[in-house]
């Protein structure tokens, strides 16, 4: 049985799109609008997508491994989706940490204000 390969046009388009993603992320880091610690996952996403898009043989092979017959670029969607989920999950942890820290800040501020207004001794 012969599985269909990845069409050249799709490979080119996907590679271009992934490259744009990598470049945008890189530019955001360079201009300090995105911190490295939050950008790593995005860079990884971009690079994996670039590799899979450009390397048609590799994509076809992986598709075969996964049992994807007929349309190997479907693997690109799956990989892209997986990384989007990872990024979202990462953001949830970041938001949780930020909101915990926010609570602590609010509490310390409120306690400090109370101390100041009551002129209580520091203990």
């Amino acid at each position, binding site marked *: 049985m012969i599985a269909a390969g990845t069409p050249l046009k799709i490979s080119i388009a996907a590679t271009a799109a992934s490259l744009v993603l990598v470049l945008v992320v890189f530019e955001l880091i360079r201009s300090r609008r995105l911190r490295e610690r939050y950008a790593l996952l995005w860079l990884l996403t971009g690079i994996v997508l670039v590799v899979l898009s450009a390397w048609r043989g590799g994509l076809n092979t992986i598709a075969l491994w996964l049992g994807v017959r007929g349309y190997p670029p479907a693997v690109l969607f799956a990989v892209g989706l997986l990384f989007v989920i990872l990024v979202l999950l990462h953001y949830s942890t970041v938001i949780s940490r930020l909101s915990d820290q926010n*609570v602590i800040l*609010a*509490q*310390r501020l*409120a306690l400090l204000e*109370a101390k100041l207004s009551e002129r209580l001794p520091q203990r």
Partner: protein
Amino acid sequence: MSAERRIAVVPAYNEERNIARVVGELGAFDPELDVVVVSDGSIDRTAEAAEAAGAHVVRLPFNLGIGGAVQTGFQYAWEQGYDLVVRCDGDGQHIPSELPKVIAPVLTGEADIAVGSRFSGGEGYRSSASRRIGIRLLALVVSGIARQRVTDTTSGFQALNRRALELFAADYPHDYPEVEGMVMTIKHRLRLVEVPVLMREREHGRSSITALRSIYYMAKVLTALFVGLFRRDVVPLEDRS
């Protein structure tokens, strides 16, 4: 009562009409008892009313929810060196004349934390069927986890000594502080006892809504409890207050 310094922590969110009465009642009942009202991002004059009534006031810059507010009160009590803390709700549900019952086990050193229970005395508190079932179920689950019989896992009428205060000032559950706090207490090998108390009844919504809400609440609490079982107990150092 003894000469120990004691304080009541009263969380309040937009309670300008009730807070002065609550503070007044606490003070009238026990003049030695300081009161700290934690105004949880109130947008009315709760803080001013509490201050005028003679309470210490801590103003949170925005609403943290009951757990965060109560913890702020605990942190205040911890920093100011109080030996005994009573937690008391700002809506008047907890009756000051019941205070001695809650404080007693902590004063005698029998417990690190004492919880006023509406149910362990047998009768007294009535509520809708769905609430009762929920309360029963929660009590069963918590009793199982804690390997100690408890009857009222949602009671906010509690007394703490300084050991329990230290724990809660540093780490207090924010979502369902009473239920999760009970489990936490026992996990940290603090001694918890329940004492029967009377409480004023709160207004309930329409029964159908209450039933649905109870189920939703139960699902959330049980999930939190279940996940909590697997949570690491260590407080991250940077989060310690």
